[in-house]
């Protein structure tokens, strides 16, 4: 029983992505999920477009890989 390799575990954990919207200009942005993020949380991160520091988290999910056609 001891000789079994842990590398044979089935699936790999995929960390979700946090999607944010600027409350001033509506610019959508995304970044890797950070602990304490939750949907509809207002963060004081800076908008890359207008520079205001209030972004709203509108979604947290695992982005699926695009299927090759």
């Amino acid at each position, binding site marked *: *029983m001891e000789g*079994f390799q*842990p590398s*044979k*575990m*089935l*699936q790999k*954990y*995929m*960390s*979700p992505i946090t999607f944010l919207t600027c409350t001033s200009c509506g610019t959508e942005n995304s970044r890797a*999920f950070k*602990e*304490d*993020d*939750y*949907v*509809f*949380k207002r963060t004081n991160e800076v908008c890359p477009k207008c520079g205001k520091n209030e972004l709203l988290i509108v*979604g*947290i*999910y*695992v*982005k*699926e890989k695009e299927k090759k056609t």
Partner: protein
Amino acid sequence: MMEDFFLNQLGGLEDTGLGTLVWLIWLGFMMLFLFYPTMSQRIQLGYMLRDLEKKLVRLKLAKDEVRDRAIDTIKRVGKPEKDPTQDIDKLMEFFMISPESMDPYGIVYKLEHILEIGESKFEEEIKKLSPAAEEYKVKTLANLLEVARTTNYLYRVVRHYYLLGKKTANIYLILQLQMLMPQLMEITEALRLASYAFAYGQPIGDGIGVLAVAKLAYGKEKARYEIARDTTVSEIDFENRRVLIVRATGPGGTVGRPGEGVKKLIEREGDNVKLIITIDAGLRLEGDESGKMVEGVGVAIGGPGIDKYKIEEIARERQIPLYAFVIYESIVEAITPMKEVIAKAADSVVEKVKSVLLEKVPAGSTAIVAGIGNSVGIG
């Protein structure tokens, strides 16, 4: 030359003596299977036990990984003064005894009582272990410990039947266990991945009902209050209709008490309530598409059945129609970090709920929309 060759083939190898030996071995096997008919079964049992042993090791690895993650998370989030390992191991063996069903009268309320005591006790213990954790994080940690407890229980049950089957050389017991193993492995793998979601507070697939109603309420809330334990009501106006949105209180990991919440709202609102809509994740069948939304009638709530019972009971009493939306997911998708295809279904559910409200609820009346599921990572 050719003639000699064919004669040797027909006569076997008796000239060399090797033929006799092969013949005797062959006869020995024949006799073994004749006088010891369970021989083939024993060989088969050996193969099956070896296969189960490998899977049991995988289960143990998953169980240990989830346990270690739970200990690390409690240390990181809760900052306990002493090492919580012993207490966590104790909590992993925690149990709840379901009520006696010989006399089924009142069993729903008895079950509710036991589950509430169990939940409170579990949270209380985690609060003691995590003095630095905020209230909502304690709930998510309780979920994480619940995942660890389930993984541990699954491993112990499989190990029990494996050892019992091995000890008694019972092929039928082992066969049944082997048939169940693919599903058990899938559930264990889902639990392993779920432990990541609860360790970091990420929304899971089961939270789609909560996410959909949160989107419906966002920016339109006129009032927000707690109606039952861990259950919030958001009041909104939609096209001259009053909509009471019931959901588990986020962003901590809880499913709340939607049954109790809906019941209290109907008792308060009286005959003004013209429709109850429930939205939940539903297990899809193999071949079904994940994230697909389907609609029907009834109460879309899983779990032990207490919330479902309460809503059905009061809806029947007041003759309120029950409408339901279900978003298809697999068992793995339901308890692991939410996938894009499921998250995007929330928008189509919101649109569909709006059209049902317009179609089935007369202007000036009230409707209740309950988003069912775990609120982890959804504020």
